Each structure stands twice: as structure tokens, then as C-alpha cells.
């Protein structure tokens, strides 16, 4: 039977094969001036990924696909980053190592600490605190004030805030009956969410603003009983979008460069046009790793990693990445739907929406399907806080994939 041919180990073997071949290619590339450190790094990556997939099988009784998918995405990203700059690539491996540790830490914390659904006010307070921190210590980078620099390590606090948004929504709706007694409580949540979005607007972090809104509207659509509030929310978003367009120059620039970047090719349309050149040159199969010119794309490690991958590994790999996200999101929703505990159910769905919207925003942006708003591609992009929070979210999803219903009682 077919099921005998495909065992649960098959995808893990493909992942392993993929990484070994990538390392082999690197070896051929360096055959003249062999660098031992590179190999130790590459080998370490393979061992870490293989081992953590293996350990997870033993530790968790939950889903065993999401971590595999995420590590495949990380591998594709890491190969590309390494190819563009070995030093950045090495740093990415360090971040990856840390991220996997954080993944496990998150997983166990979620699993064994049982008060997460009762901390609504803590989450809200935390989110505002992070905003305050950003404004106090933030520095402007790539046009947005959303980075704080601590001892040489740049962090993006909004990365944590986006997870807090999911926790706020989960804590609120899983105790909906309790909070509902306060009049207009859902309007209060609406106010809080819009204050986040407004603050992100001020920081010029449009991608994150859209992402948070996406998570919010998605969860609200599923759980809000007051259906007209959803209509208000959509209306309000459109109105604030229009106001934003006329009030903020940086919003207008995004729309203009989306409609026709070619006339601004030397200044504000530079990024997007370089990205389109890269994708067009790549074709369906790509130029081959090391044979393209991804350096021509600005921010090729971060926001534009998808274009760099398309250039050298082809649109087919690009489509593969989109499909990987699709499976990941599907799995996340599946996890949510088979979870009996409401708090974890909302968390799982919130995180799946997060992965979906974040990848849609940035991939759609770099291929000029929608206006470009800077945000990282989860798991694939370089960037400490991005990869750490992606794995943190994955850890939450992993915890939510296990049966929690005998541990916490629904108060319904």
C-alpha cells in the first residue's frame, strides 16, 4: 500500500538531503580555498535541524509537520543568506540555534504554566510598554522608527507586540462571557487595537500595522457575537486608510510606487524595480545558486529575500515557499479546530493567520501585486527578532496542537 512507501520519516529525509546537497555545493564552490569554519557551521545547521526534529517527535504528542515545514523554510533562507554574505549567514545560524531553544522554551512554558488565559491586562500593558520603549530608545532604520539597539543587537519590539495581540484576543474571547458583562467591552478592544495601529503608523511601520489589523479582523470575525462591530471595524479601517493616504506622505509614496514604479526608478521606486528585475531574470528555474546578482536588490537579506531566492532558485522555488506557507497555515487551522480548549484554539488560529498574512504582505509586495510594506518573511528572512519570534509563535502552535482540555476547564 501507498502508506507503507511514505513513512513519517520521508519528509525529514528530503529535508536532510536538501541540506547535504547545499553543503556539497558550497564545498565545490570553495574547493580552492577551503574554509573549515564554514563547514563546521553548515554541519552544525544540519545536526541542529535534524536533532530538533527528532527530539520533538519524542517530546511532543502533538503535530509533527509544522516544525518540519518551518525548518525547510529556514534552510532555504539560510542557504540564500549564506550565499550572499558568509558572515551574515553565520550570524543567521546563531540566531537559528537560539530560536530553536526559544521554541522549546515557549513550548514547555505554554504547556506547563496554566494561567495564560487570565492575563489579559498584562498583555495589554506589555504591548503599550513595548511601544513606549520603542519611542524612547528607537532609531530610524530604513525609514521606520521601529528598531531599538541593545548592545549592538537590533531588536524590533513590534515583533513581540504582534504575538501579544494574539494573546490579547485569545484571553479576551476565551473569557468572553465574563468580559461581556462590562458594557462595550468589545469596543474597548477595538479602541486598543486601533491605538496600536495608529502608533505603528507614527513609527511608519505600515507592514506591521496591516499585519496586526489582519490578525485582529480575522479573530474578531470568528468570535465576535456583536456582528455589526465587524462592519464598523472594516469601515473604520477603510476610512483611516484614506485619511492615512492623504495625511502621511510615506503612505502616498507606497501607493505611487506600486501603481507605477518605473517612473521613480532612480529614487523611491528603486527597491521594487530591482526586485522585479531579479524575479524576471530568474525565470522558472532560476539562474543557479551563485550565478545571479541578488546583491543588486536592496535589503536582499530581509524584506526582499523572496526576490533573491526567485532569482537564483527560480519561481518554482518561490511557489514552493508559498505552498509551504499554505500547508503550515492549513495545519495551524487544523490544530485550532481540533483543540477543545478555547484559549489555545484562538492562539492556534491567531498564529496561523499571522503566518499567512505576514507572508502574503511581503511576497505580494515584492512581486508588486500589492503596495510594498516592509516586513520580514517568517522563517526565511534574516533578522534576529524576526526569526526568534517566528519560532516563538511556532512553539505556541506546537503546544496548542496537544490536547489541553483535561488540564484547563472551560468556564462555559
Amino acid at each position, binding site marked *: 500500500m501507498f502508506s507503507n512507501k511514505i513513512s513519517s520519516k520521508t519528509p525529514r529525509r528530503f529535508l536532510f538531503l536538501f541540506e547535504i546537497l547545499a553543503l556539497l555545493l558550497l564545498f565545490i564552490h570553495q574547493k580552492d580555498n577551503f574554509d573549515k569554519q564554514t563547514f563546521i557551521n553548515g554541519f552544525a545547521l544540519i545536526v541542529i535541524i535534524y536533532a530538533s526534529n527528532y527530539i520533538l517527535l519524542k517530546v511532543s504528542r502533538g503535530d509533527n509537520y509544522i516544525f518540519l515545514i518551518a525548518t525547510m523554510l529556514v534552510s532555504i533562507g539560510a542557504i540564500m543568506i549564506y550565499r550572499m554574505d558568509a558572515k551574515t549567514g553565520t550570524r543567521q545560524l546563531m540566531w537559528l540555534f537560539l530560536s530553536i531553544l526559544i521554541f522549546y522554551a515557549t513550548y514547555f512554558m505554554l504547556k506547563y504554566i496554566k494561567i495564560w488565559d487570565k492575563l489579559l491586562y498584562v498583555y495589554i500593558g506589555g504591548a503599550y510598554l513595548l511601544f513606549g520603549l520603542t519611542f524612547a530608545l528607537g532609531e530610524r532604520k530604513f525609514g521606520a522608527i521601529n528598531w531599538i539597539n541593545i548592545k549592538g543587537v537590533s531588536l524590533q519590539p513590534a515583533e513581540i507586540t504582534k504575538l501579544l495581540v494574539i494573546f490579547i484576543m485569545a484571553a479576551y474571547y476565551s473569557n468572553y462571557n465574563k468580559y461581556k458583562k462590562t458594557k462595550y467591552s468589545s469596543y474597548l478592544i477595538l479602541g486598543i487595537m486601533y491605538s496600536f495601529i495608529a502608533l505603528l503608523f507614527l513609527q511608519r511601520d505600515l507592514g506591521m500595522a496591516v499585519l496586526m489589523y489582519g490578525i485582529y479582523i*480575522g479573530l474578531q470575525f470568528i468570535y465576535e457575537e456583536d456582528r455589526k462591530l465587524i462592519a464598523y471595524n472594516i469601515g473604520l479601517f477603510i476610512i483611516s486608510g484614506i485619511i492615512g493616504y492623504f495625511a502621511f506622505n510615506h503612505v502616498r509614496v507606497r501607493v505611487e510606487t506600486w501603481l507605477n514604479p518605473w517612473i521613480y526608478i532612480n529614487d523611491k521606486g528603486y527597491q521594487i524595480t530591482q526586485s522585479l528585475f531579479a*524575479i524576471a531574470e530568474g525565470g522558472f528555474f532560476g539562474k543557479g545558486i551563485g550565478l545571479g546578482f541578488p546583491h543588486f536588490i536592496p535589503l536582499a537579506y530581509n524584506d526582499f529575500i523572496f526576490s533573491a531566492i526567485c532569482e537564483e532558485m527560480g519561481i518554482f522555488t*518561490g511557489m514552493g515557499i508559498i505552498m509551504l506557507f499554505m500547508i503550515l*497555515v492549513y495545519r495551524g487551522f487544523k490544530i485550532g479546530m481540533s483543540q477543545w480548549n478555547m484559549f489555545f484554539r484562538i492562539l492556534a488560529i491567531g498564529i496561523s493567520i499571522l503566518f499567512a498574512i505576514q507572508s502574503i504582505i511581503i511576497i505580494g509586495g515584492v512581486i508588486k501585486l500589492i503596495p510594498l510594506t516592509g516586513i520580514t518573511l517568517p522563517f526565511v528572512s534574516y533578522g534576529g527578532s524576526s526569526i526568534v519570534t517566528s519560532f516563538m509563535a511556532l512553539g505556541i502552535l506546537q503546544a496548542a496542537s496537544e490536547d489541553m482540555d483535561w488540564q484547563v476547564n472551560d468556564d462555559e
Partner: protein
Amino acid sequence: MMNKNNNRVKENKRIIVVLACLCTMLVVLIGYLSYFQVFKAQEVKNNAYNKRTWINEENVLRGSILDRNGNVLVYNKKTEDSNKRYYKYGRLYSHVIGYSYREYGKTGLELKYNNALLDISDSTALNDLKSLILPTSIGNDLKLTIDHNLQEKSRSLLEGKKGAIVAMNPKTGEVYSMVSMPDFDTSNLNDHWKGITESEDSPLLNRATQGLYAPGSVFKVITTVAALDTPALDNEYKCSGTAKIDGYTFKDYSSRGHGNITLEDALRLSCNTYYVDRVQYIGKDRLGSTADKFMINSKIDFDLPMKSSSFPYKKSLSKTELSASAIGQGEVLVTPLNMAMVASAIANDGQMVKPILVKEIVSKNNRILESYSTEVISDVTSSIKANQIKDMMLKVVESGTGTNAKIKNVKVAGKTGTAENPSGKSHSWFIGFAPYDDPKIAIAVILEEEGVTGGTGAAPIARDIFIHGLNNIDF
């Protein structure tokens, strides 16, 4: 308890809605990515700002471009630190060959045949491998159908004017000369670029393929074909100099009137009243479908970017508008190349051939990689009717409005046109072919806003080109 279950069902439904939305968006991304790759990528890659093409180009000696007799028109010279392209006849080929500059991109044949000139094959696994093992350093040459001497002659005849000339072989479709004025100097764009782009005369526009003009009376050739196709159309008509259609009065060029005339006289004398009256019997659908056969309203496949001529007969036309169309006014707009093709089709027994600019692509070791041959693109009319029109067009030159195109010893056929131009002075047109017995050259000449009739403005130019071409071209 039941309530809880219901809630769960409702919740699951909504969850699936959200999942479906997100998956749809992801699928749209995949769809758009493939769309982009299939339909847009080529154009994007060719953009002048794409640094990747410069890297390839620096190492390759771009191919030369030659005329039909092997005269080199454009070539590259590589020295140790430079790889420069030389345009030997700066202005002469500004619209045909175009230019290839890092700063300003590529146009014309330089753009269309860029891959051939650089010897880049389509990216397939085998070609990629081949190009890595045997990197090319010399591109292929283009051999054009253009006759350099005739091209020079054509340009000298248009010097100082605005307009376009297209001369082509009516049987093979080979274009012998194509000139659009004003032009610009491709040999030194850096010094003149600002002036070129800011000029009000738009010298960058190739008027021969992209200029849309009212055809005026040259359109009567098409109306005449439609008239021959109309059964029981009374051939006799009394021209009084004016004709009233639906309350609007059309005037003839000579207001005295032509008296009793036939269709042949009407074309020869370019009698407006005849056509505005008779087209009411021909009807807009017959005129429209005849125009369609002449490739009006359709995209003509050509090596240079084309605008489509238009006669919007499918929307509702009033009687006046139909009458105006019959004499090439109103909403009819045509390109000069299209009109040269109209003359060709009549000359070639009703068969319209595809115009071609490039005869061959030749590799560095003189191997012919590709050669372009004649292709009939439209069956315009029967050879009997085409010959009837040919006779009429012969009369136009012998004793009608086109006598200025007459040549000793060679029979010329043609049609003049004077197109009213709402935004300025009228355009002067001539289309035709020669020799009458065995047509070798078909032509379209337009002088933009010249303010003279086709007979006085465009016809003598056509005559000079016929003389020069028939004497010098090696057919």
C-alpha cells in the same frame, strides 16, 4: 449543552471561511507569479535600468547591422577598456534601428533583436550549460531588407518637413525604406537627450508605425473595394459639387462639380460627393468588414512597435459620420505603414503580405541562423477586383489628381489624399505602386500639416522614390 454545540459548529464554519480567504490569497500569489513570469518578465528584463544585462553585454561584441546589400550601418568596436557601439548614419535609422544605450535603454531593432545581436539563446537547461562551457564573445549580425541608398533618398526628400515615408515590395513584404521626420541623432545621444525628449515635435515617435492620421481621400481605395462588392450599386452619379447627408453638407475640392461620373471617375477625380452619397448604399458593415480585411482595426505583426489603425464601425454611426468615414475623415485613423500595405495588397492581386524589416540573422562565421520569408496575412479581395482598382489607380496618375507622380516610360498607379486636420493644417497623402504591369515598389507618403494637397505635396516625392528605387535596387 446543545447551545454549546451549535456555537462550535458556527465557529468552525467561520474558521473555514477565514482559512479559505487566506488560502485564496496565497493561491493568487502563485497565480500572479506565473502570470508575471510568462507575460511580463521579458519586458521587465529589457528595461534599461536592469544592471544584469549590462554585465552580460560588456563581454560580448554586439553584432553589426547591415542593409540588403551588405553595407554596414551599425557596428561595435572593442578595445581593451571599452566596448562601444558606432551608429555610422546617426539620424538616418533613428526609428528603424533605434539605439542601444546603457543610460537610455534600447529601442527599435536593437531592442527587438537584442538577444540575436548578443547571441543569447532562450534560457533552457541545454543552452545554459552550453553558454557556460563555451561563453560567447561575438554576437550575430542582422541583415535588413532596407536599401541604404533609397533610405538616404527618402530622408533627403523629407528633410525639413514632418511626416513619414514607407516603401516596400508589394509581393514579398520587404521594406526598402522607412523614414519618419523629425528624427534624432543616435550616434550621440548623451549630448542631445534633453533636447530630444523635450522637443514638441516628438522626434522619438516613429510616425511610420505609430503615427495615427486621418487618411483623407487615400481611404477611398478601401471604399472603392467595398463599392465593387456591393451588388446593384448604380454606377452613374451626377456630381453637383455638394452633397447633403442628413442635413450636413459635404463639399468637393472643386465646388463646380464633376457632372455625370462613374465609380472610376470618382476615384480618379477624388470626388467626395460620389462617395458620401454611395456609401449609404454600401452600408457601414460592408465598409467596415472591407476595412478589417485591410488590417484596419487589427494589430499588425511587425518588428517595430505598431499602433493599430482604427475605423470604429461597430459602434453606432450616424449617416453623416458614415459619409465622412467613406472619404477618410471623421473617426478613421491610419498609420502610414498600414497604408503602404493597402497599396501593396492592390498591387499584389488582392493578397496582403506581412511587412518585414529583417531578411536574415547571420552568425559570426557567416552561417545563416534564421531567414524571414514572405507570408500572406490577409486575403483582401479577388484578383479581378484588385485589377479593376489597379486600372482606376493608374488613371489617377495618368489623368486624375496624381499626375505629379507620373514617370516617363514607367506606368505608375496611385491615389492622392488631402486630409483635413481639426488641430491644424491638412495632411498631404500619396499611396501607390510602380511599375503598373509588374509592381516592384509600393509606397505611402504623408506630409504632416503641410497644408497642400496630396497631388502637389506627396505625389512628387513618391515619384522621385519610384525613379530612384527602380533604377538602383537589386530586386
